[in-house]
């Protein structure tokens, strides 16, 4: 068949062709920043473990313009990551309670409630 058909090549820039493709690629990219925040947190924990001087060195480093810029961009990607993945969860999880399917908005809202509870707990833990 191959000699009687025409195969069209896929452009490297296929993901710029459509808004939904672009959002998808950005969502994939956001995983890098999730990884970055894990590393950032581990560095913080290590600094705290090493005592006062190391902790203050870490704070100075975290205060530098480059790190702040990376964290601001990273936070924007984390928001995108959270919102997009929360949005598609009902598609992946067909939840049923007492035999009845749980409506998609309830599943999404449940995740935001969970996020709020965890955030409040960590807020309380850090500021008490």
């Amino acid at each position: 068949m191959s000699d009687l058909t025409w195969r069209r090549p896929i452009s490297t820039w296929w993901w710029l062709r459509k808004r939904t493709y672009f959002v998808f690629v950005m969502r994939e990219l956001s995983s890098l920043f999730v990884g970055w925040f894990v590393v950032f947190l581990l560095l913080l924990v290590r600094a705290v473990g090493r005592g006062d001087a190391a902790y203050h060195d870490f704070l100075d480093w975290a205060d530098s313009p480059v790190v702040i810029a990376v964290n601001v961009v990273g936070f924007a990607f984390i928001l995108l990551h959270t919102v997009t993945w929360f949005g598609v969860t009902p598609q992946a999880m067909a939840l049923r309670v007492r035999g009845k399917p749980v409506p998609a908005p309830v599943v999404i809202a449940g995740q935001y409630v969970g996020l709020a509870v965890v955030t409040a707990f960590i807020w309380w833990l850090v500021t008490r």
Partner: protein
Amino acid sequence: MDESNTGSVTGSVTEAITMRVTRWRPDKNTPPGTQDYDVPMRKEWTVLDGLNHIKDELDQTLAFRWSCRMGICGSCGMNVNGEPRLTCATFLDDYAPGPVRVEPLANFPIARDLVVDLTDFMEKLPRVKPWIIRDDDAVLGADSEIDGEYLQTPEELDAYKQFSMCINCMLCYAACPVYGLDPDFIGPAAIALAERYDLDSRDQGARERLDVLIEHEGVWGCTFVGECTRVCPKHVDPAGAIQRYKLKAAQENVKAFLLPRGRR
């Protein structure tokens, strides 16, 4: 059509829209080109009506697939202005003033003009065993004639009904960048059909299908772009089916790891 695969044919109409149609002939070793046709723009005309007008009145050499004109047969899928659409359910006046681009479905090799070669899908579909598999032959009589029925409640029907609406129109494959970049990926419609039989209370073949879909070219090829679900004209939600399959596959892995052989 001239040698360079481009040109223009104008019909004598007052209110018209230009359809910019992809042309390619297998006997010419030139890349696909486009040809413009002016067709009457009537409120009730679909893109498929426009193509049929071209075929009947302007240019008999144009090749495209169609059959039912009512969104059932799944033959008339094409890329309209870059979006995979059933052309029988896509209205010309939504693209006014035009021109409206009509191309063969993306991600498939072109066989001629707007006709694509679906051999790849026809080979993949039976691999997921989209039919009812039973361990027993209880309803078969001695003469191998079916002498009974598998009964099903309305709730059991609802469990898979959505996934049974697929008309194999291939819009989801045309929308899927994973399939475009990696043609080994088994693809949205085939996995949605596997899910359709898995969720059927009469079926006992989930294990056999999982063996096929647990491979890399199976569900794990999918990165959840979600575009298959957005373009599906029958609201089948192949993206949802694939993610649920991933969940099932992951649970099987955990079970295989934790449980003794007999309990799996």
